[in-house]
């Protein structure tokens, strides 16, 4: 082989290997910094107590509860809609019909809309339109209850934002259910709905779970949509109704590191909160990856 070719070959190889090295080390440095910065402060007490002394000490319990409530309500609203849409796309709609293409197009669009635009939508639609409308109907506009940012509107905004995540992963699972299962069910006289309910869905429950977990992980990590749709800097008490504002982990990191009165003094809290958020999203993501791996393996065996 001519020398020139060899040299080019080696340089292509080493250049691409070097990029891989850069990416891996960047991830490693990021993780390392946050783990070493946060684990001193991280303790059981940090997780289970409320912020104290004007947010300069204490824990992040309200933020954890707020995040939990947010993703819980989000899942209750979003996962069924996503699952049913996936069922429609996979079982009922003809693959290339206008309707299914329209819905797919909408799902792709939703997946690409920036998170902050969802926030604007939440403000314009939920808070100003539905919320204020509800206030007018309930109390004639005298009491401002729903027409302001709160937990419910933030959760619903988040549910719409994570809809594509659920749809895509449930669809993958539905496709992984072998056609023979459905045919066998039909041959035994089951109707379409019975087949879906008793054969297809039980066999794709992993996919529904994966979708839900990925949506939760995305919802827990995304801050932009809730900046002005319900998250609060500090609240003395936990939210006790859907119309209350709430504290949230990601938002807590943001305000503590940019808007708190003494940014340097709370560095430890910031790192520890980031570490908690990272642990939360990673646990969720790895569970999802594991479940998806199981689906794919099942898919390839059959």
């Amino acid at each position, binding site marked *: 082989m001519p020398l020139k070719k060899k040299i080019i070959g080696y340089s292509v190889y080493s250049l691409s290997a070097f990029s891989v090295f850069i990416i891996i080390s960047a991830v490693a440095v990021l993780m390392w910094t946050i783990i070493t910065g946060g684990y001193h402060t991280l303790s059981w007490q940090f997780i289970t107590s409320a912020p104290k002394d004007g947010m300069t000490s204490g824990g992040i319990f309200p933020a954890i509860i707020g995040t939990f409530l947010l993703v819980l309500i989000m899942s209750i609203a979003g996962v069924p809609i996503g699952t049913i849409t996936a069922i429609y796309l996979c079982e009922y709609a003809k693959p290339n019909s206008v309707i299914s293409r329209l819905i797919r197009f909408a799902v792709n669009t939703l997946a690409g809309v920036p998170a902050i635009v969802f926030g604007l939508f939440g403000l314009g639609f939920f808070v100003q339109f539905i919320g204020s409308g509800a206030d007018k109907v309930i109390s004639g506009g005298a009491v401002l209850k729903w027409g302001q940012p709160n937990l419910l509107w933030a959760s619903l905004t988040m549910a719409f934002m994570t809809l594509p995540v659920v749809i895509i992963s449930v669809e993958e699972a539905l496709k992984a259910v072998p056609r023979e299962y459905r045919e066998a069910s039909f041959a035994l006289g089951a*109707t379409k709905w019975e087949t879906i309910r008793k054969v297809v869905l039980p066999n794709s429950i992993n996919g529904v779970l994966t979708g839900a977990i990925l949506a939760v992980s995305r919802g827990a990590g995304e801050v932009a949509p809730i900046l002005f749709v319900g998250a609060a800097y500090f609240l003395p008490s936990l939210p006790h109704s859907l119309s209350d504002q709430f504290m949230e982990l990601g938002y807590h990191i943001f305000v503590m590191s940019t808007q708190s009165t003494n940014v340097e003094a709370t560095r430890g809290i910031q790192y520890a909160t980031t570490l908690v958020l990272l642990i939360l999203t990673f646990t969720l993501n790895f569970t999802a990856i594991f479940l998806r791996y199981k689906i794919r393996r099942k898919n390839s065996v059959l």
Partner: protein
Amino acid sequence: MDNNLANDPENDLSSGHQKSKIITLGKKFRLSEFLAEKTISSVAFISFAVMILIFVFIFKEAFPVFFPSQNKAASNNIELKQETYGDDESVAQQQKKVETNELQNQKNETPSEKRSAIIKNLKGREWQPVSDEPKYGLTPLIYGSLKVSLIAMALGIPLALLAAIFTSVFAPKWAKELLKPAIEILAGIPSVVIGFFAMIVLATFMQNIFGFQYRLNAFVGGVAMAFAIIPVIYTVTEDSLDAVPKSFKEASFALGATKWETALFVVLPAATPGIFAAILLGFGRAFGETMIVLMATGNAALTSLNIFEPVRSMTATIGAEMGEAVFGDAHYSVLFLIGVILFIFTFLLNALAEVFIRQKLIKKFRGY
């Protein structure tokens, strides 16, 4: 009567049963099936409805920008409505139209004068929303978004493409097993965490290296943003490299080409549409990302060419100011207008990427 009508299909079947057997062989009407199908298909429409609602409500809130005195303007200028839906071009067109309009009837029309003043304001180079004489120049914001995205792309594209080539061509198994989880981890890191890291660690680190004046600036934001777009570009590129048929590679090897020659001259050209889509999606992600730019770019609405100066992006502006904007105010509407521009821009990018992925790639591998 009503009862009979309601039960019509059932009755038909049972009476038909006696008359001829052909009808019973047809599909039997079942209420539960019917309801299930209708419910499922109507729920499926929710995503479509949400897309439309986003369109409608963001436009609706941005709309008053062009109609400051609402009640008057709404009745006077209905025919202008469609042109105010605002991506840049139509805003520019709108401005010309309004200007000519204004020249024609300068004496009496206050709303259109106001409107043209506002549009001139929007095209300005200054963003000072909170002052006695608020200035809503969008130029520095659009510039800021583009600047950060382009820096991120300049760093992210080569890294992600080379890494994808490495995985699909050269990588020994162990390297693949290290890289894939690393990318998955990177994709799973919330953007607020990347922003935090950039703001606290990366900014100081880079200031020590480059010695720039402002700790938080477009470059720091761009580097952090590269973290966010590398997984997107890498994943889509890797998918499209994988989708190149094995026979292409085998043919190339059979002709005596080496691994890297095959990679550069056979696999890469065949996967071009997919790579292009990957880049578009990465760009859309960078352009629409909020938390990273909000935390790491310094947020000063400047339009200098220096990449080490702070910038303020469109997304960061919405994120930082919407909390304080008063509902129905001009500031509020302008922030929604920025949202409209963001929406349209990412919408077009995604649609384009879709075209590249779906059509070109399929056509290509089916032999044109």
